[in-house]
């Protein structure tokens, strides 16, 4: 217990201020997502056609902090709701990506030979099939619903995890702790689940922090071609795509979600880099 407390203290002492701010931002954004139901000042889909396109209050509007959109819906509430949807979609998507990729990587590394060949061909296939096109095809043809959408986002980038996990597993098999445990008589499953996975997890986490903001961005691009989250549900990407038409008149409609995306991505990248620099398992201090 005491040791843990110290670890936390140590953590705060070691963390540079910039990283600290980034972490605070990420936590804040996640808290907003989790508690969005309680902090949204208004129903994000309730329209009010009389008070539409109101500017933010700091620009003289009287319809809520960030004003209202083209249907008179409260922008702040929609922003909060968007943070929730975007983060959920990106988060679940990233988890799917990481799990899928890691498992495929491990399987390929373990069975080698033909299994490896097949799985790596699949990886090649995914590389050769840009995600945007995959999304375009799948969503355009199967119709868009949130589950399909999340699964699709889950596919984005899995091959990077697969290659990473495979590479790590292969090198772990070659020498070191995995060989040591194997020769103790451990089953392959045990080796992967108890040893290789915890060791790879660091790198997976770093990859995760890189993949996560990517998902938000991918969602934004999909919204642009009309394949993102569907109205009246909203997301950061669809808010931006929706607001882009108003850049000449009500610029804040696109800029506000844009800032949220930018800051979140920035914070994630900063933290991701920092984690990578500091948690490199090969440099055990």
């Amino acid at each position, binding site marked *: 217990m005491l040791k843990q407390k110290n670890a936390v203290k140590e953590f705060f*002492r*070691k963390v*540079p201020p910039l990283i600290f701010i980034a972490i605070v931002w990420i936590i804040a954004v996640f808290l907003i997502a989790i508690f969005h139901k309680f902090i949204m000042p208004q129903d994000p889909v309730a329209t009010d056609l009389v008070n539409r396109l109101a500017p933010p209050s700091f620009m003289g509007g009287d319809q809520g902090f960030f004003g209202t959109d083209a249907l008179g819906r409260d922008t702040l509430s929609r922003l909060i709701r968007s943070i929730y949807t975007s983060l959920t979609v990106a988060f679940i998507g990233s988890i799917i990506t990481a799990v899928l990729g890691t498992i495929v990587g491990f399987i390929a590394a373990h069975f080698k030979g033909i299994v490896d060949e097949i799985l790596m061909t699949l990886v090649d296939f995914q590389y050769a099939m840009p995600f945007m096109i995959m999304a375009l095809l799948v969503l355009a043809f199967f119709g868009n619903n949130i589950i399909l959408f999340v699964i699709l986002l889950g596919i984005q980038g899995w091959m990077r995890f697969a290659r990473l996990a495979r590479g790590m597993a292969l090198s772990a098999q070659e020498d070191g702790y995995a060989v040591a445990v194997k020769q103790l008589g451990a089953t392959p499953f045990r080796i992967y689940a108890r040893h290789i996975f915890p060791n790879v997890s660091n790198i997976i986490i770093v990859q995760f922090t890189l993949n996560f903001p990517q998902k938000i961005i991918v969602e934004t691009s999909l919204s642009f071609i009309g394949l993102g989250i569907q109205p009246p549900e909203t997301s950061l990407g669809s808010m931006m795509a929706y607001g882009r038409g108003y850049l000449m008149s009500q610029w804040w409609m696109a800029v506000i979600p844009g800032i949220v995306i930018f800051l979140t991505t920035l914070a994630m990248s900063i933290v991701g880099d920092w984690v990578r620099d*500091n948690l490199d398992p090969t440099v055990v201090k």
Partner: protein
Amino acid sequence: MNSDLLTVSNLGVDFLTGGRTINAVQKVDFSVREKEVVGLVGESGCGKSVSCMAILRILGETAKTTGSIRYKGTELLDLSESGIRKIRGKEIAMIFQDPVTSLNPVKKIGSQLIEIIQLHSRLSSDSARKKAVSLLEQVGIANPADRLKDYPHQLSGGLCQRVMIAMALAGDPNILIADEPTTALDVTVQAQILSLLKRLNRERGMATILITHDLGVIAENVERVFVLYAGLVVEEAPVDVLFKKPAHPYTQGLLKSLPRMTDDKERPLVPIEGVVPSPENRPSGCCFQPRCSRSTEICLKKQPLLESLGSGDHKAACFHAEI
């Protein structure tokens, strides 16, 4: 005293990483005379490499170096960046422990060698190439002209170390620092390299600082020894004195813990109990005190200084040094 070519005194190195300060070298004093081979010996992490890299100022920005390093009367720590660059390779050259990774993997060894040669002399590329061939010949590489076209990964560890030595010789330095030049190599190759270094010292009159943790290598190759422990020089002596009459309990312990070819097999080895303290939690007083059988009150309080023990050449930093 014989004229000192290089004098390192009161050297301290701190690393500032991740908001912490690591005191890698506490207080190191040593000197090299002309044409002399000195040895720095000590266990892993005691600060051998850092001390030597501090001389050439190649420790990077996180390192803070204090003390004084005088080469031919010039204070190296005060030199400008371009000033120290004229020392590097030309006056003092260094070779490193792991020869294969110490060579640039994407460049042919010829071009790496010639680059250094041209840097230190105004040779045309043709004559630089000739010099490169002759250098490789000197370090005992067969078919040197062909080897120039090879990449480091195509050479064995022994050959890479020879190339490193050739690169170090390219500027005709006065001092060669060899940082564990043989630890990564096979036993038979190690013997080759060490005899090469000996020959070069003899033929070129180049002073050499040989860093190693292997007391055997020290015994066979150097004239004067500095024993390091936890960032401190704890003993300094001519080689035969050190092995015959080690004064510091640490040195004595090291010698006892070695298995020897002449030993009785049934005699258990006598290790030094305990472990080297990490730079972050060194004990108070004498650094060696927790592992020392002779330690007394005073050892807990004060770090002993390196002091002469009768004969001027033999010094030890111990309150209970055996004379």
